[in-house]
């Protein structure tokens, strides 16, 4: 399934709400949470991380992973948290509006 424009940022922020993760961890988490429906390529995730970091919504620091390996871990900042709340409510509005318009799946005749 392809992502809607701009939703990747939101997904990353949402994923980091529960705790800090390294880049590959974020990709894996999104993939498993969506039951493999969203095949996030690391190649497109990585620039998004850098973009979010430049905007100050997430911050990164070196740490050791579960297998005792060094990796860069990302975590949500205070402004990132605020942004996520805002985005979340916008998203919910959007979904409900589009849902109202689309209604149930129409029968296809012919």
């Amino acid at each position, binding site marked *: 399934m392809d992502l809607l424009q701009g939703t990747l940022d939101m997904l990353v922020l949402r994923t980091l709400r529960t705790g800090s993760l*390294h*880049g*590959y961890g974020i990709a894996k988490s999104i993939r498993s949470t969506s039951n493999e429906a969203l095949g996030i*390529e*690391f*190649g*497109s995730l*990585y*620039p998004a*991380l*850098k*973009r979010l970091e*430049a*905007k*100050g919504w997430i911050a990164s620091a070196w740490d050791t*992973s579960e*297998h005792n*390996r*060094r*990796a*860069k871990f990302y975590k949500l900042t205070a402004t990132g948290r605020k942004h996520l709340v805002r985005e979340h409510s916008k998203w919910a509005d959007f979904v409900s509006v589009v849902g109202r318009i689309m209604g149930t799946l129409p029968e296809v005749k012919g």
Partner: protein
Amino acid sequence: MMIWNRLRYLWPAWRRHEEREMREELESLTAIAGAKELGNLTLAVEDARATWGWTWLGSIFADIRYSLRALRTQPGFSAVAVLSLALAIGANSAIFSFADALLLRPLAVKNPAAMFDVSSTTPDNSLEGMSFPDYRDLRDKSRSFSGLIAYRLTTLAVAANPTAPARMCFSSLVSDNFFSVAGVTPAAGRAFLPGEATASAQPVGVVSYDFWQQNYAGKQSVIGSILRLNGIVFTIIGVAPASFTGLDRFALPSIFVPLGMAQRLDGEATDALEDRGRHDLIVKGRLSAGASRESAQAEVAVIGAALEREYAKTNHNRHMAVRTELQRRIQQTPQLLALVKMLMGLVALILIIACSNVANLLLARGRARSREIAIRLSIGAGRSRVVRQLMTESLIVAMAGGVAGLFVAYGGIRVLETLSVPSDPPFVLGVQLDWRVVEFSLLVALASCLVFGLAPAWQTARTDFVNALKAGGDGASGKGRMLGRDVLVAGQVALAMIVLIAAGMFLAGFRNMLVMPPEFRTDHLISLDTAPAVLHYSPEQTKAFYRRLVDRVRMIPGVAGVAMTEALPLSPSQTAVNVVPEGYQFPKGREKELEFGAAVDAAYFSTLNVEIKRGRAFTDDDRAGTRRVAIVNQQFVKTYWPGQDPIGKRIRFDSTAGPAFEIVGVAKTGHYLAVNEAPAPYVYVSYEQNPRSRMTLVVQSTGDPGALAQPLRDAVRSIDGNVPVFNLRPVATLYKSRVTDTWLQFFQMVGTMGFIGLALATTGLYGLVGYTVSRRVKEFGIRVAVGASHRDVVWLVERRGLILAGVGVVIGGVLTAAAAPLLAAGFPGLGVSSPAVYALVPLALLMVSAIASYLPARRAAGLDPLRALRNE
């Protein structure tokens, strides 16, 4: 925070740090997840870098670096391209600065775009000054202007103390709000206060910055010091800033004094400021917010109509016009507009020649580089990126040309700066290299870059890279491209021809002018101006002064004759009168015409050797109280009484109600303002019957007229040491500067343009023919191998150059035939179409073209066939 986050990525050390961080991060992730799982990391880094937000800047720097490298590898190409542009842009900038000085430069006031000129108009004169009462009414009633100023330019005799000889200086008599409305803050001291405009106030003045520097060494003590203007003691209260040199072109006032002083300075019995019939003030207004020129025009029209109703006597048929400064200047000096248009047109042609030269070079270079570009395209560079890269190169060439052009322009401006008219006080042309010229040069560079850069860049980027790589040559399908370059070169020749013919016509006109008789004597004559009126002489005293002066000068050894005139022919200040010739039917709505005219004494015609064709000259019997007489020139007769006998006819001055003068003689038509002017009507009246306050003495010498300078000064001093003497110079000097020097400089200017145009076009032709030869090395090799002679090959190449030049000459001939009338119309007497010019210029062009193609032709013929073939 955000800004800082972004800006720090401009810092190379931070970028390196970030790069290292990313590399380490990705290496660690590869260790965790494996390379395959992470995919194309190079692309990921590339995209991440793009989020820094400065890739565009980085790529521009890369373009510039790459362009500089490319240009350095071909110094010959770069030098020719930059030089071509430098010459053309330099010529354009120099002429722009000239046009700026003549017409375009805005007033040196705050927000000049909001300043408009308000003038009085009548059916006879669409640009007349305003009277002070009219100005006062306008100022009080108008809502469109937030402020209206009035002023007039005059010359005042300036002396620091009563014993020093007075100097004549330009001065502005200004309304008290002059500086505040102009938005000009004095460099020292203060501007005028509202009360200081009245006649009864203490006389105060503001001096110009230059005057301050020259006479007071820029010291603050100037404030409060005393200056004698026309013999009246003034206190200096302020110094104008260096940037403000008054509101007039050419005449820079040294001193600004309130208009209220006019009556005392002029020593007049009545107050001219209360005379509604005296139209000598220039009025300018600053539009209030929300008003436009149109709304202001509508308002002043209503005010003008009200004044016309109320003051029918003085304001009959008088209206008001609101103009921009440029409109005013064009109205005032339409001949300068013609000059500017012609010169700008010529340099524009040169710019086009230079641009097509550079375009041609770029096209040739593009072919040579098509392999390189094909490689760049094939490894994935976008075509738009390649075009951008090529445009960057063009832009660098253009900017280098623009900057180098400024040096060329500086040279031209130095020459133009010397253009002046010898007079006291001096008129100043004001050609200068300022920011406006710099901006103009860079703008022209930018524009030319678009002209010469776009087409070659596009064409190069269109390269069929498969062919280009395969053939090892170029990927262009040759024919179309070659045709484009041929058109460019033929066009260059055509444009060069127009410029050369213009130069040739100027030369022919200039030669005509040199051989043209001045129609009055210039040798053995020296002239001087005096102005006893500035010392408040009464008219009777002035008359007595001149009588004594003439008597005294006649006694000086070496003086053969003395005459007086109000205006010496060809001197920059000519006098004019409104004439109403008897029996002449004016166009509807008009009742008089402004013509040159002067009061002269009885000795004038014989001393200046102005021939009387019919009737008689003035005699000593034409005195006050006898029948009023006048003499007109042949052109006057031709204009107003064609085919009739003018002797005995009558003429009135100023208006139909003026006194009648009887024509007693007809003088030969001469030149009055310039030698190349169209024949102009002229009318002489007798000085004894019409005494003037300011006269020019013309003294005929038996020997060197220059030797009389000191005796003449002494003669004036022996009568009154305070009377200023100015414009003391041999008439031949004046004549030379007015006729020879000024036009010689114009000719040099146009001649230089012609030369530049020819040089550029020749370079273009040479380049193209040379290029053709280098492309056909193989063909020539075969021709020589199968027995073509040296001459055959030379002719083959020559023919091509000559055909191109020939086509150019034919096109140029057609274009010139269309443009010549415009040229001739703007410059009577100078834009003469001389058959010799039309014959010589094409011949010269063809000859130069033949030489330019001979060099590559010889190279082609000298080819060793074996080597030529092996080369391919």
